[in-house]
């Protein structure tokens, strides 16, 4: 059976060439022109997660250089690299490497570029100029507004939009058929609804639901529920009841079982604040968001996760008692 070589479907069904990219028509057309002309400026790909920015960059490189394109493309991720110095070193080495036979430049793909500080972006700008004779940069970013003007003005901007319902559903259908997974049609629409145009997320949900059995609306929502640890909500509820100790016990369990960092916990708590499943007075939600933001800031500044989150839970238990919150 085909299960022998199971991969994450998000990898397996990633388009390899520009032709295979079904959506983002205009973008693909413009990119194809670069391939034809064998030349291109620096590019800035902007758009929400899962809209195909990295995929488009790979497909572009593939069409430019052929199957072995990887030797002519350096892929870096701003959030994973340790600062601009490592990026500089890697780019420097890469720029000195072999150039492709009939195309005058190589490509540096810098993913999540909007996670770089303004200073690092300035350094990046100089880097781009330094190697512009034989290197083109593709910067991918979720929020183009976080890219400094000096960089934006040096790049051609491409805006990636969330995928349409038709695109997502037809792709999911293709994958499900191909994998011989059984599914309900409306389950695929449910997947679109919860994935908000993020193709990668949609495919992950499909594969997870399929691994549990038939893909139904129910199983889709079950997967979504499981992917967000419900302990987070429980932790908030326990704290709101005024039971600080119980809440902190849950916090520590979460951090250990899921290996969550302080920032991970903050993000997941944030997802819950305005959720209808979490019962609390509306005005308190705003206060929670505000204080959570403060805690988030303190964690990012480098202070101790455990202390910050304890402070947050202590605040929650105090406010919970004040408001007589929870149902």
């Amino acid at each position, binding site marked *: *059976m*085909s*299960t*022998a*070589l199971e*991969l*994450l479907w*998000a*990898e*397996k069904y*990633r388009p*390899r*060439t520009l*032709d*295979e990219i079904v959506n983002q028509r205009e973008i693909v057309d413009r990119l194809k022109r670069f391939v034809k002309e064998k030349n291109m400026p620096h590019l800035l790909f902007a758009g929400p997660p*899962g809209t195909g920015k*990295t*995929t488009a960059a*790979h497909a572009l490189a593939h069409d430019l250089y052929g*199957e072995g*394109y*990887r030797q002519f493309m350096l892929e870096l*991720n*701003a*959030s*994973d690299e340790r600062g601009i110095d490592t990026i500089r070193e890697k780019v420097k080495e890469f720029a000195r490497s072999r150039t492709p036979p009939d195309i005058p430049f190589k490509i540096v793909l810098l*993913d*999540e570029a909007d996670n770089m500080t303004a200073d690092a972006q300035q350094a990046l700008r100089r880097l781009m100029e330094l190697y512009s004779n034989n290197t083109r940069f593709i910067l991918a970013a979720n929020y183009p507004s976080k890219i400094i003007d000096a960089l934006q003005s040096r790049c051609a901007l491409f805006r990636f939009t969330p995928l349409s319902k038709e695109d997502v559903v037809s792709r999911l259908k293709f994958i499900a058929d*191909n*994998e011989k997974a059984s599914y309900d049609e409306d389950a695929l629409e449910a997947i679109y609804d919860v994935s908000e145009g993020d193709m*990668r997320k949609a495919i*992950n949900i499909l*594969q*997870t639901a399929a*691994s*549990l059995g038939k893909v139904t609306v129910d199983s889709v929502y079950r*997967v979504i529920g*499981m*992917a967000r*640890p419900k302990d987070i909500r429980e932790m908030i509820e326990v704290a709101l009841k*005024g039971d*600080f*100790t119980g809440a902190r016990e849950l916090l*520590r369990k979460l*951090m*250990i079982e899921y*290996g969550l*960092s302080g920032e991970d916990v903050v*993000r997941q708590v944030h997802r819950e604040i305005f959720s209808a499943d979490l019962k609390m007075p509306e005005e308190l939600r705003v206060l929670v968001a505000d204080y959570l933001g403060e805690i988030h800031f*303190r964690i990012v*500044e*480098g*202070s*101790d996760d*455990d202390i910050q989150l*304890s*402070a947050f839970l*202590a*605040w929650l238990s105090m406010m919970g*008692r004040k408001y007589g919150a929870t149902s």
Partner: protein
Amino acid sequence: MSKAPARLPWVIKYRPKHVDEVVDQEEAKSQLLTWIESWLAGKVPSKRAALLYGPPGVGKTSLVEAIVRDYKLELLELNASDYRRAEDIRKTVGMAAFRRPLFGRLLLILLDEVDGMSARGDAGGIEELLRIIPNTQNPIVLTANDPWQDALKPLREQVLMVQFKELTLNNVVGLLQNICNKEGIECDREALRYIAEKNMGDVRACINDLEAVAEGYGKVTMELVRALVRGRDKSIDLWRTLNGIFYAKEGWQARKAVLSSEEDYETLLAWLNDNIPNKYGDPEDAFRAWDALSRASLFLSRAKGGDWDFLTYVFDMMGPGVAMARKSGEILKNRYAYPSKITMMAKLREIRELRDSVAAKVAPRLGVSMATFKADVLPYLLIMFRQGDVERAAGMVVSYDLTEDEVQYLAGARAREIMRAAEKVRQELRRGAKAEATAKKGAEQPQERPAEKRGQLTLDLFGVPSQGASEAKKEGRRRSSRSSR
């Protein structure tokens, strides 16, 4: 939270119940017993109070409790640090001191931690005690870690001083061994020795460490103990610092307590973090204390960023900030607890490492960052491994070349099942690959090689032209990339 009914902490469970179970304090024992027996015989001794002193965890309170049990006395236990003002002492100790014994039983008044009373700015608690002691009709026992403070000088002259020594190493090791035997825990004697050495005769600390290691890992080996047990040889210092902060009346006292501590700031922060709930019962007090602690931690990170001028605010926040947070006046009597964070960190580190190594293998193949992978993909992978189809999970183990530890992290209880299935998949692939290789000797290898050359294992598998069993799979693959040809 433990809902199990009778799960007692070992320090309580293995407290000596009888006088003869109190080890290694023979001198203190005979001194105190003579004194008590004199009371019992109706001869009121010249010193009507006894001060038991010595390092923490050597059995001061335990001995008193054992005497109470063996001699069938009545016990009134007070924590001195809670009753510092003269009127508090008069109301509690004073009342008890002149009470007639009930049912002919002798009433013993135990006043714990009197050195906590002597903090400056104190409202005459000690003076009140000095007035009560010469006239008390019932024996009063005081305990202290450090009786040599100036404030306690007049007290020292009025009481029977009973010294408790640090326990010998062998005695402590024997005691720990005994507990392990009773709990059915496998342990290295070397490891027990290590725990005993690190805690320098503080039996309570030793038992806490032993329990922490045994409970987390089911056994006590040298390796675990080295990683988890930190020396608590400064426990007196810590105890003094924490008391100095939690019981401070004015900001400067708390600040002084922090400044005079020998512990590093991080350790002190961790202790405060875990002990606020042991001292502050009022939720508003607790929140204010944590907010101050949270700001202390923030200033510390700024200071460590190179600007050491900020360090002074760290002291302000963790000392006075925590101390002045208590506005309700309420303070709990709970003992200080060893920060669980320190044991937790070892476990947490292990899990994070596994998570990162899975991310490093899979994220590049999806073209996403490690951070994105962990936030957006990993949750689904966890569900597939923990609850999804075993064969499919096994397939992914092979595709991404995951190690046993990584699978253990992803799949939890199902890890073994999945690893077995993965081994089967590997065998089949090897057999299939061999058969095919001999059938058509690498004829179409060059153009069959797929574009992505990232995965080591998958690359080889896909690179070998296949037939039969894996044909369906390949078909899907080709279709998805058909226009590239």
